[in-house]
């Protein structure tokens, strides 16, 4: 094993998950101008749904993943309808506070039902490391990285070519113009929250076999958030680069500076990026409808 390459590869593996969380944040922010502080809880919800599917209903892992995507999307739509739609005309700050509240409610509701006892599900890929070059990686981690890459590719295609994807991009740029095209803006919001929530849920069910399931799983919001900001908060490629950067830098900082600073490193990067490039690595200066 060579230390630095291993740190980088393991960092990318961790970072791909941060990226998935970051993308969920970015999608919702772009469409609605809201920073969703409950995105971490959608990860938690996805993990618990996966656990229910697999251990309670005895479904295969792949079926569970599909059900988690659908279930998380549904939860996202319901939460949007109940908690955020009534605040549609409120300032974004109000809605951001509402997302914090939603996150706490979800977390505590889960805790009421299942306490803090961690659960786990077994994945389908091996957790035994294989050696590639001078680094070790498990098929399980590779599968997660591949899934994230696949999801990103599908998202890019979705936004570039599908009618709904274009409508979402249009709505993100000007809600008024979008409605003049006949696009139902509340409908787009609902679908955006569904998509964001589904991505969070996917992250949850992907990571659950590796790290277990408890109500604190939503803490992954923090590196995800840093990744999103580093990437400009409005860019999917930015979120991916941000996520991987955070993962790799955590690892390098953790070893070469101190493990006490491991989680501080991303914030240092964040502040540096924002000082040099106020709109993030991939952010564009604010230019919406013209």
């Amino acid at each position, binding site marked *: 094993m060579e230390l630095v390459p291993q740190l980088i590869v393991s960092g990318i*593996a961790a970072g791909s998950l941060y990226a998935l969380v970051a993308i969920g944040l970015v999608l919702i922010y772009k469409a609605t101008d809201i920073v969703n502080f409950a995105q971490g809880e959608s990860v938690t919800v996805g993990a618990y749904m996966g656990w229910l599917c697999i251990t309670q209903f005895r479904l295969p892992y792949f079926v569970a993943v599909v059900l988690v995507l659908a279930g998380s999307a549904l939860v996202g739509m319901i939460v949007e309808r109940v908690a955020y739609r009534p605040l549609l005309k409120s300032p974004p700050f109000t809605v951001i506070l509402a997302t914090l509240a939603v996150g706490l409610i979800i977390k505590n509701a889960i805790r009421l039902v299942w306490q*803090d006892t961690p659960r786990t599900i077994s994945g389908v890929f091996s957790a035994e490391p294989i050696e590639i070059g001078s680094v070790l990686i498990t098929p399980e981690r590779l599968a997660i990285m591949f899934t994230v890459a696949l999801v990103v590719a599908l998202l890019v295609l979705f936004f570039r070519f599908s009618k709904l994807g274009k409508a979402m991009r249009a709505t993100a740029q000007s809600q008024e113009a979008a409605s003049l095209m006949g696009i139902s803006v509340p409908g787009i919001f609902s679908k955006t929250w569904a998509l964001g929530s589904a991505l969070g849920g996917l992250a949850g069910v992907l*990571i659950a076999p*590796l*790290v*277990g399931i408890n109500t604190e799983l939503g*803490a992954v919001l923090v590196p995800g958030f840093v990744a999103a900001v580093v990437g400009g908060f409005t860019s999917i490629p930015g979120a991916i680069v941000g996520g991987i950067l955070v993962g790799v830098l955590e690892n390098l900082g953790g070893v070469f500076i101190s493990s006490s600073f*491991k989680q501080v490193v991303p914030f240092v990067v964040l502040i540096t990026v924002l000082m040099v490039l106020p709109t993030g690595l991939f952010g564009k200066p604010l230019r919406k409808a013209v």
Partner: protein
Amino acid sequence: MQDRRTFGKLSAAVAATMAFGRHASAADEIVIGYHGPMTGPASWVGLGGRDGALMALGEINAAGGVNGRMIRMISYDDAGKASEAEAVAKKMIESDKVFAILGGGISNVAIVVAEEAHRGKVPYMNGSGASPKIMDLKSRWTFSGATIDVRDIAENAAIFIGDYLKVKKVAVMNGADEFSQSLSDNVVRLIKDRYGIETLTRQRYNPGETDFSSQLLAVKQSNPEYILMFGLYVEAARAVRQSRELGIKTPIKGDTSMMNLGFLTVAGAAAEGMIAEYLPLYFNGDTAKDMVEFESRYKKLFPSYPVDRPNYVDVYNYGNMYAFAEGMKRAGKDLTRKGLVEALETLNNYQAADTWPKAVNLIQPLTFTESHNGNRRLSFFRVTNGAFKPIADFKVPVPSTKFPQNASLNW
């Protein structure tokens, strides 16, 4: 504040175990207050502490109570916060006028309640706090029962590492919480001073972390004979699992917080062979007679609890409640608070089953004759076939830590 919903459900269950609890008039009752975090991340501590005590109390009342009087317990959620705990303590002492208080809290909460109890001259049993802050408190009203001082934990661990594992080079990973930090600091110092064991690297991890590759790779790079892990069991379990992903084959010794079914659940097969210490004599699912009996009674009483209950705080306070009851019994018919304190100070190498026929022994014997710190020893376990099994061929001698002697305590 009071967790009425669950408490209602449980008290119904407890009532069913009380053969003649109904006859006792309020004047004949001895009311014990209980506090612990029953909501929030530490709720497993508070709920465990409450339910273990309730179970013992049900058995005690079923056996006729203490000198003919029934014990009743009222429980409050302190949310693990000092500010809440102060309000809860005042309410128990001033308005509920409880006879004594049992705690299921963490140290910084226990100290607040202990201070209130001292002011109000109410006996207080620290159920699970392990910090020197509470152990060195010079109050005659406060006892620490089944729990063990963090310095004693460190001594127990150091002796085990030096005398049983007999290693010379270790790497340390510890949680960033205060408990794990100070415990690991103490162990690192003790193994160095007493056995010359070198700590090659120290790595920290934070609550909520999901990836430990940097810490584990730094450990791997240092090439230790053993990895010592401290604290935050969910994160530790993730790290143990990930250590195998990174090809780390070095054996791992955890600590008491990892003696937890949740730990085994998350760490999975990677936990096999791992060592950890624990305060109770057995871990869940052990086939020893006392543990089998305890678990079957517990599950009858609390049928809806998840698989990892009873936890160790259940076990602590089961024992602590018996110790309290024994003190009350020894204090005699004219029970006073001062009398209870003096009677508790007569407990020497005491186990519940010595005097209570229904009781089972799950904790180390308690001794309050010299100091109010009743227990000094830990048991060591190894994960074997996915379960924590006691290591039979090693018994730690009583550690050297000095605690305030009874004569030096103030009323």
